[in-house]
């Protein structure tokens, strides 16, 4: 039996750089505002929106629109599936790094 390459465990939805960043930030709080996430990742509204739609469709992120005082505010939350997907992605990346070091000890 052969062991599958860790790269195969990477999830295309999660592996994209910005989406991985979104999941990482959201994993550290119960909820986060759209504006705070945008500022933390240094993105434009449109760019963040586009990636959030992908994550929402994959049911990895939950989006709640409401008000903070009189101002409209969008709250984002990592779903259980999102937390699990992030955990798997990090584990796959760590596996890849370990494998790379084992095959290239001088790198």
């Amino acid at each position, binding site marked *: 039996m052969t062991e599958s390459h860790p790269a195969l465990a990477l999830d295309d939805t999660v592996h994209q750089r910005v989406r*991985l*960043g979104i999941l990482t*930030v959201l994993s*550290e709080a*119960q909820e*986060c505002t759209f504006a*705070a996430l945008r500022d933390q990742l240094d993105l434009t509204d449109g760019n963040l929106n586009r990636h959030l739609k992908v994550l929402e469709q994959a049911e990895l992120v939950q989006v709640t629109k409401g008000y903070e005082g009189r101002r409209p505010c969008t709250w984002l939350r990592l779903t259980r599936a999102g937390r699990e997907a992030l955990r798997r992605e990090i584990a796959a990346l760590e596996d890849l790094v370990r494998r*790379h070091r084992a095959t290239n000890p001088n790198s």
Partner: protein
Amino acid sequence: MDAEQTLVEVRRLRAQARARAHGGAWLPAAAIAALLLASIALYRWPFGQTSSIVAEYPFWAGVADEQRSPMLSYLFWFLGTPLVVGLTAAWYRRRERVSGMRVAWPLFAAAGLGVLVLLAVLAAAPSGPQPDALSAAGPWWPGFLTPLLPVAAGVVALGVAERSRALVAAGVWIALMAVWLCQWWPLGTIPGGMLSLRPGHYLVVMALPLLVFAAVRYARGRTAGD
């Protein structure tokens, strides 16, 4: 290597987000420690040795020792604990507005106030004659009827909300000390003897992990410019 760079970036981002989301944990920890330390004033001889002690049950001051006034002790915890929860709620709401990141602080409020209400209900239960908590043959539960346990439950819940093992450990520490000090008489009984410490000393030891946590988190936040 791409995977290695990605991991480095993920860790950096995670640390940054963690500091932003959980940088406010020092204030509730300091407030709870202050409440514990302020309760030292409820005892008649908080630090001084005395030849005889009358510890009235329930132990509304916190640990099984002589209180100045059971009513004063009762009011202290039943007003002080909600006050600390209210202060904490206001603090987290303010941080939410500034940082845009929300911590599950209602968990702390629910645990602290929930166990406090449970304590009031249990203490008011018509359980027949008052238990002789001071005898070895007494019932097993008097040690659980202390206002220190709602505080301990609140600290554990705060640790869960703030994802801090140190806070969870501080809560468990308060609970273990509270049960030990209320369950075994006289105060400070250990197998084969007893420690010659007074309620004030024990409360300082109880609050110490919270104080260290608050100081470390505050200093870390200042260094990071939080």
